[in-house]
C-alpha cells in the first residue's frame, strides 16, 4: 500500500499522519477511560487487561509453538497462591508479582519436560493431569490454600489523586502494555522464529539448528510466567482467593479466548480476552447460555474465520485501505 523508500521509514512505528492521529486518540481514550466511564466499566476493563496477559502467554505456547496445554489453571493457581503468600508476608506488589511469575515458570519447566517426548494428544493428557494434580493439591493442603476460607490479600494503596479502582486500572494497563511490548519483541526475535519453526515442522527445525529441548522448555516457561502473573493480578483484584476457582473450566476459558481472538496474534489475545469477559456480562440474565455462546462461536470461528477476531480486523482494515478497489 504505502511506498517505503528507506529502511528508516520501514522502522517507523506509525507510517502515516492519520495512523499517528488514530494511535494518539486510542492512547488518550485508554488514559481518559476511568474518568468518564462508570466505576463498574473500569473494573471490567481492568479485568480484560489482566486476562489479556494470560491469553498472550497461552497464545505463545499454543499459537506460536504449537504445543497443546490444558494445564493453564494449574499455573494460574500457582501464580495466585504464591502471590497471596508473598503479599501476606509483607512483600511489595511488584516483587510478589515477579515471585508469582517465577514460581509458575518453574512449574512450567517441569511440565515442559514431558513435552520433549510426548506429542499432540499425549501431551494434552499429561498437561491436563498436571492441572488436575495442582487443583487437588491446593484443595487438600490447607497450608497452601488457607483452607476453606481461602487467602485474604492486602489491598493495593491508591496512587495519589486517584480512587482505588482508577489506580488499579492504571497499574494493570501499564503492565499489559509492558507485556504486549515484550511479546512483540519475543516473537520477532530469534526465539520467536524458533518457536514458529517448532510449530510448523519439529524435525525440520531441529535440522536447521534450533535446539528443541531449549526452545520447547523456554516456551513452556515463558507461557507459564505470563499465566502466573495473570493469576497474581487476578488474586490482587479479587482480594480473596480460594482453590475452587482454578478448575478445568478456567483452562477451557483461556483456550476459548485464544481461539476466538486469533491463533498466533498478539492483538487477537486482547480481543479474545475481551470476548470471554464481555459475553458473560452481556448474557448475565441467561447465565446457562454462556457456554453455548462460547461453543457456537468456536465452531463458527474455526469454520468461517480461522484467524479469529484478529483476522476479521485485518480484513476490515485491508478493505478500507484498498477502498474503492478490492
Amino acid at each position, binding site marked *: 500500500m504505502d511506498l517505503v523508500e528507506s529502511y528508516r521509514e520501514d522502522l517507523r512505528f506509525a507510517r502515516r499522519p492519520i495512523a499517528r492521529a488514530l494511535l494518539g486518540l486510542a492512547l488518550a481514550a485508554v488514559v481518559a477511560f476511568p474518568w468518564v466511564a462508570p466505576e463498574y466499566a473500569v473494573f471490567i476493563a481492568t479485568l480484560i487487561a489482566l486476562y489479556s496477559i494470560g491469553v498472550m502467554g497461552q497464545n505463545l505456547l499454543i499459537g506460536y509453538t504449537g504445543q497443546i496445554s490444558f494445564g493453564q489453571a494449574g499455573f494460574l493457581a500457582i501464580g495466585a497462591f504464591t502471590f497471596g503468600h508473598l503479599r501476606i508476608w509483607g512483600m511489595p506488589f511488584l516483587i510478589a508479582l515477579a515471585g508469582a511469575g517465577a514460581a509458575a515458570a518453574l512449574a512450567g519447566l517441569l511440565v515442559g519436560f514431558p513435552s520433549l517426548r510426548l506429542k499432540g494428544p*499425549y501431551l494434552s493428557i499429561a498437561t491436563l493431569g498436571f492441572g488436575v494434580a495442582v487443583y487437588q493439591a491446593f484443595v487438600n493442603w490447607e497450608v497452601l490454600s488457607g483452607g476453606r476460607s481461602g487467602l485474604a490479600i492486602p489491598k493495593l494503596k491508591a496512587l495519589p489523586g486517584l480512587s482505588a479502582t482508577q489506580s488499579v486500572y492504571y497499574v494493570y494497563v501499564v503492565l499489559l502494555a509492558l507485556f504486549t511490548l515484550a511479546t512483540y519483541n519475543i516473537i520477532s526475535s530469534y526465539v520467536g522464529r524458533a518457536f514458529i519453526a517448532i510449530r510448523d515442522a519439529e524435525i525440520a527445525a531441529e535440522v536447521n539448528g534450533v535446539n528443541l529441548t531449549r526452545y520447547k522448555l523456554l516456551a513452556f516457561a515463558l507461557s507459564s510466567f505470563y499465566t502466573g502473573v495473570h493469576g497474581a493480578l487476578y488474586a490482587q483484584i479479587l482480594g480473596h482467593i480460594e482453590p475452587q476457582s482454578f478448575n478445568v473450566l478456567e483452562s477451557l476459558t483461556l483456550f476459548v479466548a485464544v481461539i476466538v481472538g486469533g491463533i498466533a496474534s498478539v492483538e487477537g489475545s486482547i480481543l479474545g480476552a475481551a470476548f470471554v469477559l464481555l459475553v458473560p456480562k452481556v448474557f448475565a440474565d441467561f447465565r446457562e447460555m454462556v*457456554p*453455548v455462546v462460547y461453543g457456537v462461536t468456536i*465452531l463458527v470461528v474455526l469454520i468461517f474465520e480461522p484467524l479469529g477476531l484478529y483476522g476479521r480486523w485485518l480484513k476490515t482494515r485491508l478493505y478500507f485501505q484498498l477502498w474503492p478497489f478490492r
Partner: protein
Amino acid sequence: MDRFLQYALTGVSAGSLYALVALGVVLIYRSTRVLNFAHGDIATLATFVSFSLLSRRYSFVAAVVLSLAVGAAVGIAFYLIVLVRAQRQGANLLGMVILTLGLALIIQGVVVYTWGAEPVSLPFPISDTKTYRFGGVVVSQLALATIAAGVAGSLCLYLLVQRTRVGLAMRATSENVMAAQTLGIPTRLVLGVAWGMASALGVVAGIFLAPALLLDPFFMLDPFLKGFAAAVLGGLNSLPGAVVGALILGVAESLTGAYLTIQFKNTLAFVIIIVVLLVRPEGLLGREFKERV
C-alpha cells in the same frame, strides 16, 4: 488378602466403565484422528434423556435404547455436519480438538438450561445395596452389573470390528482412507458409524455410572478424564490397549485409595500415566509412531 481382593474388585468394576469410555475415545481417534473432548458431554446429555424418559414412566429398556440412539445421533451429526467441513478445509489436530471442545460447551449449556444444575438421582432397577458374598469378598449387584456391561460392550465391539463386513470396512478406513475409497468403501458413512458407536459406548458408561454418582451436568467430567487417560495409557490406536489401560487405571486407583491416600487417589492415577508415557510414549499396547519428514 481379603481386603486386597475387595479393593481390586472395586477397581475392576470402575475400570470396566473406564474401559467403555476409553474404547469410544480410541475408536474415534484411530478412525478419524480426532480427540473427542465432547465424549463425556454426549454421554451426559443422553443419560439425562434417559432420566426424563424414566420419570415419564417409560420402561427401563426402552429408555436405555432411546438414549443410546440419542447419543449415537449426536455423534454422527457432529461428525457429518461439522468435522467433515473442517477436515475439508485442512484443519489440524489442534483445530479439531477445539471443535470438539466447542461441542462440549454447547452440550453443557443445553443440559444446564434444560435440566438445571441441581443433582438428581436416576431411578435404576439394579440395586446398590443388595450384596453377594464370595469367600471373603462382598460384591454389590450394581458392581456385578457394571462389570457385565463392560464385558458385554467390549465383546460386542470386538465381534463387530473383527467379524463383520462393517468392521472390515472400518479397519480398512482407519488403515488408509485413500485406498479404502478406491476400493469402493463409503468411507464417510463408515466413519460416521464409528462416531455413532463410540458415542453409544460412552452412553452405556454414563447410564451405569449414574446410580453410583448423582446425576448433574458435570458428572461425566471425571470418568471421561479417566477413560481418556486410560486410552492414552493403553495406546491411542489400540482397542485392546484401551481395555487393559482402563483396568490397570481402575485397580491402581482403588488400591491407592485403600493403602496410600484417599485424597490424592485421582492425582496419583495421572502421575502413573505421566510416568508410563515418559518411558513408553506410544502407550502400553500402541504401535510406535514413525514420523515422515
